[in-house]
C-alpha cells in the first residue's frame, strides 16, 4: 500500500485551493441571485449611491472570503472501515459516511482553476437516494486517484467473494487483476473531428433555443429596466409587410450562424481532446478545455446504448453515441455521451460492450403505417386546416406558405414509417427510428425490468398494440406493433429475464 493510500485514513482537509473554489462558488450564487440589482445600480448613474454600492460589494466579498476560510477549516475527509467519511459544517456539524459498496462511481472534474493549480474535484455517486452524493472541492490528483483505486479495489474484491460463494457454473468474466489494469483507448476526438461534429449538430434546434433565450432575456430587461423591447418588435412585424418578411428571412440565417458559432465554441469547451477509455470492467470519458471532466461507468451498469446520425453527420460518416447506465432515478441523467465517432470506432466499442451483437441475426418488425397516418393528421393536417382558415380570413398571400406544413408532414411521416423498426434477437432488442437521421437503441434482453403491452380501442380494432420495455437506465417504446408480435415479444422477454442468472446490474 502506498504512502498516499495510507494517508487517506487520517482526517485531513482538502487542498487549500478549495478556499478559492468555495469563495468562487459562493460569489457565483450571490451574483446569480442579485444581478438585476447590480445592473440597475450600474446603469442608473447616481454619484452618491456608487460609494454605498461599492462598500456593499466589498462587504459581501470580505464576508464571503471569511465564510470560505471557515468552511474550509471545518471540512475534513478520511477513510474509515471501508467508508468514506466527511465531517463538515459551520453552524451545524455534519458527519457523512458513505460505505464503499454503496459508491457507484468516483468521477473527477477540473475547471480552469483546478487545471491551473493542479487539483481535481471529486464527485462520489452513490446508489442511494438524493442527498447522499458527496463532493470534494479540491484535492490533489494523486490522492484522488488513490481514493478511487481504493473504492474500486474494495468493490472488485466484494464481487469476487460473491461470485465465489454462489458457485455458478460456467464462464465467469475473466477480470484483469487489480493494480495491473491496462487502459485501452477506444476513441479520441481530434480538433478536426470536433469541428466536423460541431458543423453537423442540429443548428435549427439550437437556433430556436437561442431565440427563446434572447426572448426571455429581453423579457428580463423589460422588467428590470423598463425598456420596451417587445413593443418595438411588435410594431415592425405586426403588419406582415415586405420589410417584416425580409427581417424574418434575414433573421433565420442570422440565428443559424449565431447558433453555429455558439455550438462550436460550446463543443470545443466541453469536448476538447475527448478520450474514451476502457479500464478493466469500466469505461471512462475524459473531455473538456477549461473544465476537464472525467466520467466513469462500470460495464455492468450499462443498460441502453444509443447511436444517432443525421444527414450532415452521414456526410462526415459520424455517429453520436450515448451509453445509459442504471440510475436510482431515471430522470437523472447519468449517461456517457460521445458527440462524435466513426463507424470503426463505434463497431469496436460495441464489440467490447456487447461482444456478440454485430454478428447477430435479427428478425425485423415494422411499425404499422396507421401510426404515421395518425402523426400526419395531428402534426400536419390539423395545423394546416387551422392555418388555412386563418389565411382565408386574413387574405394575406404569405400565410398560404404555411400550408406547406401538410406536404412536409406527409413526407416526414413516410420517412418515419420507413425507418421505424423493432429488431429482435434472443439476446438483444434493437429499436430503430428517425425521420431525416437515424436513431438506434440497443438493449440486452437480460437487463430488462418489465414489459408492458397496451392498446387503445383504435389500436385493438386493427389488431395493434404498443410495446413498452423498461430498463433501469431508460425505456424503449414501440407504438403500433402487430398485437400478436407485441405479446410474443413480451412473453419472450419475460421468459428470458426470469430464467436469467446473470445480474442486470
Amino acid at each position, binding site marked *: 500500500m502506498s504512502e498516499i493510500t495510507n494517508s487517506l485514513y487520517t482526517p485531513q482537509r482538502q487542498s487549500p485551493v478549495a478556499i478559492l473554489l468555495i469563495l468562487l462558488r459562493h460569489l457565483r450564487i450571490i451574483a446569480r441571485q442579485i444581478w438585476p440589482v447590480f445592473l440597475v445600480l450600474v446603469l442608473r448613474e447616481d454619484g452618491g449611491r456608487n460609494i454605498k454600492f461599492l462598500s456593499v460589494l466589498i462587504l459581501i466579498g470580505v464576508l464571503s472570503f471569511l465564510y470560505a476560510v471557515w468552511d474550509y477549516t471545518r471540512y475534513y475527509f478520511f477513510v474509515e472501515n471501508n467508508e468514506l467519511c466527511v465531517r463538515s459544517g459551520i453552524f451545524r456539524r455534519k458527519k457523512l459516511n458513505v460505505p464503499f459498496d454503496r459508491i457507484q462511481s468516483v468521477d473527477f472534474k477540473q475547471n480552469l482553476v483546478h487545471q491551473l493549480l493542479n487539483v481535481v474535484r471529486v464527485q462520489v455517486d452513490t446508489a442511494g437516494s438524493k442527498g447522499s452524493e458527496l463532493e470534494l472541492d479540491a484535492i490533489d490528483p494523486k490522492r484522488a486517484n488513490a481514493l478511487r483505486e481504493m473504492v474500486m479495489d474494495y468493490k472488485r474484491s466484494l464481487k469476487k467473494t460473491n461470485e465465489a460463494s454462489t458457485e455458478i457454473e460456467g464462464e465467469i468474466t475473466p477480470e484483469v487483476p487489480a493494480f495491473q489494469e491496462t487502459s485501452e483507448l477506444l476513441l479520441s476526438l481530434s480538433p478536426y473531428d470536433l469541428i466536423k461534429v460541431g458543423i453537423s449538430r442540429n443548428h435549427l434546434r439550437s437556433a430556436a433555443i437561442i431565440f427563446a433565450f434572447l426572448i426571455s432575456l429581453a423579457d428580463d430587461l423589460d422588467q428590470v429596466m423598463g425598456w420596451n423591447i417587445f413593443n418595438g418588435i411588435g410594431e415592425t412585424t405586426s403588419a406582415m409587410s415586405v420589410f417584416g418578411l425580409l427581417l424574418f428571412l434575414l433573421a433565420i440565417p442570422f440565428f443559424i450562424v449565431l447558433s453555429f458559432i455558439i455550438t462550436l465554441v460550446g463543443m470545443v469547451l466541453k469536448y476538447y481532446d475527448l478520450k474514451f477509455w476502457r479500464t478493466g470492467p469500466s469505461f471512462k470519458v475524459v473531455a473538456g478545455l477549461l473544465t476537464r471532466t472525467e466520467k466513469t461507468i462500470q460495464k455492468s451498469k450499462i443498460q441502453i446504448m444509443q447511436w444517432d446520425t443525421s444527414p450532415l453527420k452521414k456526410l462526415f460518416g459520424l455517429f453520436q453515441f450515448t451509453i445509459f447506465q442504471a440510475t436510482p432515478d431515471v430522470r437523472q441523467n447519468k449517461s456517457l455521451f460521445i458527440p462524435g465517432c466513426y463507424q470503426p470506432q463505434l463497431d469496436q466499442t460495441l464489440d467490447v460492450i456487447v*461482444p456478440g451483437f454485430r454478428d447477430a441475426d435479427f428478425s425485423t418488425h415494422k411499425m404499422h403505417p396507421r401510426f404515421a397516418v395518425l402523426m400526419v393528421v395531428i402534426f400536419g393536417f390539423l395545423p394546416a386546416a387551422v392555418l388555412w382558415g386563418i389565411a382565408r380570413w386574413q387574405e394575406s398571400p404569405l400565410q398560404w406558405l404555411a400550408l406547406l406544413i401538410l406536404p412536409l408532414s406527409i413526407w416526414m411521416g413516410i420517412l418515419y414509417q420507413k425507418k421505424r423498426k423493432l429488431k429482435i434477437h434472443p439476446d438483444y432488442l434493437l429499436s430503430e427510428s428517425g425521420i431525416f437521421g437515424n436513431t438506434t437503441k440497443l438493449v440486452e434482453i437480460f437487463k430488462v425490468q418489465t414489459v408492458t*403491452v397496451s392498446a387503445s380501442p383504435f389500436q385493438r380494432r386493427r389488431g395493434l398494440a404498443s410495446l413498452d420495455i423498461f430498463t433501469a437506465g431508460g425505456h424503449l417504446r414501440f407504438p403500433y406493433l402487430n398485437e400478436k408480435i407485441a405479446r410474443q415479444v413480451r412473453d419472450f422477454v419475460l421468459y428470458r429475464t426470469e430464467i436469467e442468472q446473470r445480474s442486470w446490474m
Partner: protein
Amino acid sequence: MQQILFTNDQISLEGLPQVEALAVIPLEPSYKTLRYVSASLFALAATTVAWVVALSVPGIGYWGLVGSVRFTLIGLWNNIYSTISFRHVGYAGRVKDISFKSGWLWLAVTPVPFNRVQHCDIRQGILDRKYGLARLTIYTAGGQSSDLMIPGLLPDVAEKLKAHILGTTEQLIEADPDV
C-alpha cells in the same frame, strides 16, 4: 456472447408461457364503491372551489356555473369509467412473476418478474381504510412508470401477496447475491 446456465435452443414462441392466458383475479367489489366515492368527492371539491373563486372575484360569476357543469360531467364520466373498467381490472400471479391488467378503453398488461422486484409497500389512504382496503405497490428499477400498483386488495391479501413476492425475491437473492 457468454451464456451461463442457458443454452440457446430454438424456442417455439407459441410454446412460451403467455401472460394473456392467465385467469385474472378481480379486485374487491368495495373498491368500486371507493372509486365512486372518490370521483364524486373530487367533483364536489372542484365544484366548490370553482364557485368560491367565481364568487370572490367580481365579474366572473358565470365561471362557477361553467366549472360546476364541467366537474360534474368529469365526475360522472369517472363513475361510468370505473363501473365498466372494473370488470377488466385484476391481477394474476405466476411462479416467477405477477401481472396487473388494467383499463377498459386503454388496455394494458404489465407483468413484473420477481427477480426484478426492488421492494414492495402497502398503503392505505383514508378512503382505503374506510372501506377496509389496501393498495400494494411493487417497485422495480425501471422507474416510476414501470412500478406496479394493485389497488382494492383486502389488507391481509395485500400482506400475503407482499410476503410471497418478497419471499420469492429473497430466495432468488440467496441463490444469486448479485440480483
